[in-house]
């Protein structure tokens, strides 16, 4: 091999460049914050913050902007998704971690990873054609484009997150805990209920919070199936959420207009909610690791 040496002071240069690279994630976050606020904040010279967050009317012709229908829609659709996905996901994680024979694990794990890899717009198309019709026929409604349809497809999309994080935290419960329980004559279920679930709970909770953030931020799967009618939401009626209104209305909003500012303010709300959830789940996860060890 030919001789290959670096001049000695080049190490400092490389170190500096790589340090800048390491800060790039922070720089992009900074860009996001700066541009969201730069484009969003002019709204509040015309509309008060409280008025914006609690207002129920959204009218682009009269320039009246209230965000409550979108916030409420996002909350309801996420609650619906969690009600479906949490029991199913945690059961599946328990199955994989505690009782699944090797062959069942070998089928289930890749299947779940595949579920995580399907693009969200493909989920949206599937939900539009299958779930929407299902809801319409089952509940005998004029349209199946409802908040519930969105909750169902979101539940399917967040299952992989809940399952993989729950499974990891269930598997990190120390063997000695379980063996102690079995030595006292407990059945598998008694061990799961009294030992495994309480010990793994912080990790499971962190997974659920992370999944919640994903559900709140999901756009493409939701926008195709919820009908996008601006109103205070209920499960079996068409509704609208933060992400879908941004996607649908940003194309027609004139850059710099009050409408444009208001849409960026919705993104700020979205950003703040998701940011807090992410910090919270990381905090719980890092603490639970210490406790488990």
């Amino acid at each position, binding site marked *: 091999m030919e001789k290959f040496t670096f001049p000695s002071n080049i190490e400092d240069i490389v170190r500096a460049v790589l340090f800048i690279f390491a800060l*790039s994630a922070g720089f992009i976050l900074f860009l996001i914050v700066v541009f969201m606020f730069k484009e969003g904040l002019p709204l509040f010279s015309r509309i008060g913050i409280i008025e914006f967050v609690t207002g129920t009317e959204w009218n682009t012709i009269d320039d009246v902007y209230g965000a409550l229908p979108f916030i409420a829609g996002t909350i309801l659709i996420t609650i619906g998704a969690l009600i479906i996905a949490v029991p199913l996901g945690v059961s599946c994680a328990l199955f994989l971690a505690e009782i699944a024979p090797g062959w069942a694990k070998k089928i289930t794990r890749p299947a779940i990873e595949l579920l995580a890899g399907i693009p969200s717009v493909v989920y949206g198309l599937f939900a539009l054609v299958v779930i929407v019709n299902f809801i319409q026929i089952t509940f005998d409604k004029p349209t199946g484009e409802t908040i519930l349809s969105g909750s169902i497809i979101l539940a399917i999309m967040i299952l992989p997150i809940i399952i993989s994080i729950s499974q990891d935290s269930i598997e990190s419960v120390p063997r000695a805990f379980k063996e102690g329980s079995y030595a006292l004559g407990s059945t598998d279920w008694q061990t799961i209920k009294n030992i495994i679930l309480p010990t793994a709970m912080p990790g499971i909770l962190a997974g659920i919070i992370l999944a919640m953030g994903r559900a709140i931020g999901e756009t493409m799967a939701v926008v195709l199936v919820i009908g996008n009618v601006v109103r205070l939401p209920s499960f079996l009626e068409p509704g609208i959420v933060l992400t879908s209104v941004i996607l649908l209305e940003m194309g027609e909003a004139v850059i710099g207009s009050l409408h444009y500012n208001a849409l960026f303010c919705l993104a700020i709300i979205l950003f703040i909610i998701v940011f807090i959830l992410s910090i919270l789940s990381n905090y719980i996860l890092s603490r639970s690791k210490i406790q488990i060890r």
Partner: protein
Amino acid sequence: MFTINPRVMDKIVKLILWISALLIILILFSIIFYIFLRGWNVMSIEFIFGWPREDWEQGGIFPAIFGTFYMVFISLIFAMPIGVGASVFLVEFTRNEKLINMISTLVDSLNAIPSIVFGLLGLALFVSYLKMAPSVLAAGLILGFMILPTVMRTSEVAIRSVPISEKEGSYALGATRLQTIRFVVLPRALPGIVTGAILALGRAIGETAPIIFLVIMTPAMIPISPLDPNNALTYVLYMLAAEQTPRRIEVAFGISLVLISIVLFLNYTARFINNYLSRNINR
């Protein structure tokens, strides 16, 4: 009050757990099967390699396939050097726990940002601030921002898993830190880094919301310069589904099948490379 025999209860719960896992597999296979079935109807050589006609309702989707790959190629060119460089810094150049934790929090936070917020960043940064028209470069950069956390996480794991003994061996031979990174650390971590790149690629190909204001549907075109606008599979799929007619839905399922096939192929490749990596390390 009656109590259930613990043994019976145990059986019931296990049954429920089995059913929940089966249900999830059933959901997955019905989604895949349904998309495959509906997508297969429109699948042909012309559909993959042909030019779209009548507003993408007839003919092929080649410009969207080409545009998607061009765009994610740019996102990788942006994210790979920065992501790998950042992980080299975190593993090899610093022992400052506080700094490492801070950067890792930032990376996690960036990873949690909703995709539509990246879309707005693209609009505000490239269109409104830099006065750029939609282009492959802008769309690719936004996707690059978005996959950066994935690249950083996976390459950091890969670089950390290089055995210390090999690095020490290199230092013992009188190699400098840079020589050790160049000749020991990076070659050893390469399979893991490539796996991460493929996973990031799969994610970038499937994204719609981040690029929605930066790609176009008409005219169908093959971008040459990075400043040309491009078509993207996911965006065309969304537009077809949003204003549905039976024919548009058929084409949308065809595009879905193409997308899922690409993602499946990438996942399989990543798994293959990853297995190769773990075999190497266990040796």
